[in-house]
C-alpha cells in the first residue's frame, strides 16, 4: 500500500485534471443547451460510480451474511451463477425488453454482478466483506450527493425547474435516503453485531429500489433517456470525453475506498487491541 498508493493517487489527480480539460475545452458545445450541458460530464459519471458502489455494497452485504453459514453460502453461490446465466439468456430471448434496455447491456450487467460476487467472495472473506460494505456505502453516498446537486443545477436552465418527481430523480433520491439511514444505523448502533444489522438493512434497501422504480414508472418521465444502452444518441467526441471522465471518477472512487478501507481496518485493529489489553491479566501460576 505504501508504495503503490502515492503513485495511484498522482495518476488519479493527473487523470482528473486531463478529464476536466477535455470536458471544459475540448468537448464540442451542445447545440441547444450550450455550455450548461458540460455538467453532464460530471453528473453521469458520478451517477454510474454511485450505482456501482451501491451494487458492491449490496453484494458485500449478502456475502457477509451468507458467509457466516455454510448452507447459505452455497445457496448464494449457486444463486449468483444462475442469475448470471439466466440474465444472459433472458437478455437475448425476451422480446421486446422493457423500454430503454438493450440485450447487450442486460447481459453485461448480469455477468458483472456474478463476477463481482465471486471477486468479493474470494478477496473479501468474513469481516473484510463488512469493511468493504461500509466503505462503499460511505463513498457511494458522497457520489450520489454529487449527482443530486449537479442534477438540479443542470435542470434549472434546461427544464426551467430545479426538481421534478421523475422516475430517475426519485429513485436516486430514495436510494440516497436509504443509504443515509444505513450509515446512521452503523453510527448509532451499540450492538456488537452492527455488521449483521447493517447488512440486513442493505438487503432491504436493495429490494426496495425496484419497487420504487416501478411505482414511479407509472408516472410520466421527464429525464432524458440514458445515453448508453438507451434510446438516446450522442456525438462520438462527447462520448469519448464522458468515458474519460468516468474512468477518472472510478479512479477517484477507488482511491477513496482504498484509503477508507485501510483506515477502517486499522481502526478495527486498534479497537481489538484495546479490548485485549483491557482484559484482566491472567494470574500467573505460583
Amino acid at each position, binding site marked *: 500500500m505504501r508504495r503503490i498508493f502515492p503513485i495511484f493517487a498522482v495518476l488519479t489527480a493527473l487523470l482528473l485534471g486531463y478529464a476536466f480539460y477535455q470536458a471544459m475545452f475540448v468537448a464540442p458545445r451542445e447545440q441547444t443547451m450550450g455550455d450548461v450541458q458540460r455538467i453532464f460530464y460530471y453528473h453521469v459519471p458520478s451517477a454510474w460510480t454511485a450505482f456501482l458502489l451501491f451494487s458492491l455494497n449490496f453484494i458485500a452485504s449478502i456475502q457477509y451474511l451468507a458467509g457466516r453459514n455454510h448452507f447459505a453460502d452455497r445457496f448464494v453461490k449457486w444463486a449468483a451463477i444462475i442469475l448470471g446465466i439466466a440474465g444472459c439468456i433472458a437478455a437475448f430471448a425476451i422480446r421486446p425488453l422493457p423500454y430503454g434496455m438493450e440485450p447487450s447491456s442486460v447481459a453485461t450487467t448480469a455477468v458483472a454482478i456474478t463476477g463481482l460476487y465471486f471477486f468479493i467472495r474470494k478477496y473479501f472473506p468474513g469481516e473484510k466483506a463488512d469493511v468493504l460494505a461500509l466503505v462503499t456505502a460511505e463513498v457511494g453516498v458522497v457520489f450520489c450527493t454529487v449527482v443530486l446537486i449537479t442534477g438540479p443545477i443542470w435542470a434549472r436552465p434546461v427544464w426551467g425547474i430545479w426538481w421534478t418527481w421523475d422516475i430517475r430523480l426519485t429513485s436516486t433520491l430514495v436510494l440516497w435516503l436509504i443509504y443515509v439511514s444505513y450509515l446512521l444505523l452503523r453510527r448509532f448502533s451499540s450492538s456488537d453485531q452492527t455488521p449483521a*444489522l447493517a447488512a440486513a438493512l442493505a438487503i*432491504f434497501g436493495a429490494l426496495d429500489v425496484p419497487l420504487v422504480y416501478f411505482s414511479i414508472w407509472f408516472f410520466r418521465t421527464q429525464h432524458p433517456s440514458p445515453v448508453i444502452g438507451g434510446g438516446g444518441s450522442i456525438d462520438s467526441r462527447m462520448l469519448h470525453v464522458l468515458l474519460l471522465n468516468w474512468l477518472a471518477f472510478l479512479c477517484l472512487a477507488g482511491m477513496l475506498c482504498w484509503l477508507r478501507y485501510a483506515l477502517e481496518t486499522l481502526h478495527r485493529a486498534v479497537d481489538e487491541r484495546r479490548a485485549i489489553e483491557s482484559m484482566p491479566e491472567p494470574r500467573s501460576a505460583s
Partner: protein
Amino acid sequence: MTSIIQATLAKDLRLEWRSKDAINSMLFFALLVVVIFSFAFDPTAEESRRIAGGLIWVALLFAAVVALNQTWARELRNQALEAYRVSPAPANSLFLAKAFGNFVFVAVLELLMTPLFIVFYKLRAIGPAWQLIIVAVLGTWALVVNGTFFGAMSLRTRNREIMLPLLLFPISIPAVLAMVTATTNILTGESPAKFWIVLLAAYDLVFTTACLLLFETVLQAE
C-alpha cells in the same frame, strides 16, 4: 410454531387490553394530527377528497411508529427477550406474533379513526369504496411488517425511539406512495387503483419474505 405464535400474540393482546398503552397513545396522537391538518389546510369537500389519502396515511404512519416503538421495548423488561433468545422456539414465530399484534393495534386504530376522518373532512368515496378495505389491509401490513422488523433492529441503538422512523420511512416510500395514490384514486373515482393495489401486494410479499429470512439474524444480534 402456530402454538407459539398464538401464545405470544395472546400475551401481547392481553397486556394491551389491560394497559391500553399503545392504543391510547396512538389514538390521541392520530387525533391530534387530524385536527392539526384540518386547521392547517381547511379544505372544502372537493379538495379534501384529493388530499385525504395523504393525510390519512401520514397520520397512521406516525401513529403506528408509536406502537411499534413499544412492541420490543416491552420485552426488554425482566430480560424477556434474552429468555426468548435462548429458548428453542423459532425466531420467526416471535416475529409473526409481534407483527400480527401490531397489525391488530393499527387496524383497531383505523376503525376508530375512519368515522372521525369522514366527519372532519366531509368524505364520500366516488370510486368503488370496497377497494379501500383491501388497500387498508395491505397498507397496514406493509407498515407493520417492516416496522416490527426495524423495531427489533433499532432496539440496540443508542437513540432507539428516533432510529425506528429513520430506518422505516425510506424503505416504506413505495408502499406509502401506493397507499396514498390508491386511496386518492378511489376517493376521487378518476382513475383505477388496480396497479397500486398490485404494487402494494408485491411490496408485502417481498418484504414479508425478506423479514422472515433475516429476522433470526437480527434477533441474535447482541
